[in-house]
């Protein structure tokens, strides 16, 4: 059976096994390295907070209320005299947990929905397609609020809501990609060689969609941190006693006109972390997309800089 030569719309075949090298290329990518650095700092702050914080983050001090940033309190203190930096470090734990668990949940949900929704029998496939279309209309916040109406608010509600809504989104993005890879010649070849269906899925199809997948994961992490901030502010996220960044924003609401600086820190923490995940997503897209890999770890500006400095 002769097939017409490859259609021009087909994407470049996944020939070169780049799995080992994209991590290194990411580290050499300027924004990739910087955003990874920021994320590492947040994780480190969360880890260090278990053994050390500048002050006890929950001890109130009536004589140290609303202190401006100084050598003693690097980011100042809040309404009851708690050290802001210490609380931010404690809040980083919530952020790290929410981002990690919610992203993992979304990854599993998304992959299962996409794979089952592509390869399963028609009676399973069609309902999944409808389900994905409908769930897209439920924003994370709405899912979280429904769960909160039943269970009451908690960090778990945030995680489940982000996991479901972003899992559906990942499935929606992944499905056409999987279909495209599944239709390519090397998958046909593998099938002709007698590779089992799970084997084809695991060895050939899933690696083919990895670039799109990890970019989506990075964006999911960013969205989960934003969702945590919003939901904690509304009172459906972290419990009121905790030091999550969203709770800290909610607490400062009353004092925003009197002490605007106190509002700046938690908001800045959220923004910088979210930005880091966004930029990581962009960098990952450049580094992992086989069609974009003309990237050799340097960019034009860097090369110009090198020529100015002279040859090494």
């Amino acid at each position: 059976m002769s097939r017409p030569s490859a259609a021009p719309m087909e994407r470049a075949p996944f020939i070169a096994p780049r799995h080992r090298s994209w991590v290194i290329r990411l580290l050499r990518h300027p924004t990739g390295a910087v955003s990874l650095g920021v994320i590492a700092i947040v994780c480190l702050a969360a880890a260090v907070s278990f053994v050390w914080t500048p002050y006890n983050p929950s001890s109130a001090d009536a004589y140290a209320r609303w202190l401006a940033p100084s050598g003693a309190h690097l980011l100042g203190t809040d309404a009851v005299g708690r050290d802001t930096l210490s609380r931010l470090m404690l809040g980083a734990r919530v952020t790290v947990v929410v981002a990690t668990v919610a992203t993992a949940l979304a990854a599993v949900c998304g992959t299962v929905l996409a794979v089952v929704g592509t390869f399963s029998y028609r009676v399973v496939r069609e309902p999944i397609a409808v389900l994905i279309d409908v769930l897209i209309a439920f924003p994370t916040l709405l899912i979280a609020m429904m769960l909160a109406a039943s269970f009451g608010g908690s960090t778990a509600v945030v995680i489940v809501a982000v996991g479901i809504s972003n899992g559906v989104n990942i499935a929606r993005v992944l499905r056409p990609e999987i279909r495209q890879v599944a239709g390519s010649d090397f998958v046909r070849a593998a099938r002709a060689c007698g590779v089992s269906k799970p084997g084809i899925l695991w060895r050939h199809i899933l690696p083919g969609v990895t670039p799109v997948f990890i970019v989506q994961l990075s964006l999911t992490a960013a969205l989960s941190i934003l969702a945590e901030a919003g939901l904690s502010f509304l009172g459906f996220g972290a419990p009121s006693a905790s030091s999550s960044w969203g709770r800290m924003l909610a607490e400062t609401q009353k004092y925003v006109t009197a002490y605007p600086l106190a509002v700046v820190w938690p908001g800045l923490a959220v923004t910088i972390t979210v930005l880091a995940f966004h930029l990581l997503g962009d960098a990952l897209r450049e580094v992992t997309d086989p069609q974009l890999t003309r990237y050799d770890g340097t960019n034009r500006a860097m090369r110009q800089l090198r020529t100015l400095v002279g040859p090494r």
Partner: protein
Amino acid sequence: MTRFLVVRLLNLFIGLLVASAMIFLTLRILPGDVAQVIAGTQATPERVAAIRTSLGLDRPLLAQYGEWLAGLFRLDLGTSVVTGTPVATELTQKLQVTFPLAALSLFIGGLIAFPLGILAALWHRRVVGRAITVLSITAAAVPVVWAGLMMIAIFSGWLDILPSQGFPVAGWADPGRAFRSLLLPALTIGLIEGAVLLRFVRSATLSALGADHVRTAAARGLTRTRALITHGLPVVGLSLVSILGLQIAALVVGAVVVEQLFSLPGVGRMLVVDVGNRDLSKVQSEVLVITAIILIVGTVIDITHRIIDPRQLDNEAVRDA
């Protein structure tokens, strides 16, 4: 075209039905119980059971779901079991705040996104273009709460020119004050949505700049800007119509947070209060109305896209073949 319309509307109907079933199941199968909430923590089990019977909560789930659906077809969204007021009346009243808020936010977002996005694409190698891009990426990472708090700190704290809390009791009978109280909230959502939208406008414009027909127009003697305006922008506009559908969901989410922050009596705030009260029957109707709005707007945008974009007809022919 007729076939497309029928299929699309049928899809919308099925989507609404599935959404209503999912909302109902999420809110009923899970353990929270309205009867327990109404009776209070001190109530005897008998009292709770009596309330449950009077509300019809002891009947089979399918019967309850059927009753709710039948009510929806009569535009009856049920009554709040906590306050006893009909949900539909309250919802229409609250929409008078939320709808103008969403419209104003979208307008501000568009006002930011379109000129700056096109500029960022035209000047994508210059400093200004890059600065716009960097700013938009940063603004898209800002949580809505924080943007709102900063707006309050700047415009009502420091400059003291705009109100930060509440909505006039007279409502739209006092249009000037009503508008002023919506301005800061709308600016908050508009800035962030505008930043998100800007990235779409920029990449759509960039791809239009590289499109063959725009290059041909430029080769025929038009300047690059002119070629973009006369030949490229219509295509950009079309691709953005479909993006707007996705932004509606973001507007709803923004409205919930912002209404809480600025104490606006809108649908979002109502939902937050009802979720806090665990008024499940009310929450279920409200969530369905919000989802329905998102789904219906999506369908309308899809259909409009199909009508105004002649290329879609070709796609349809390809897909049917």
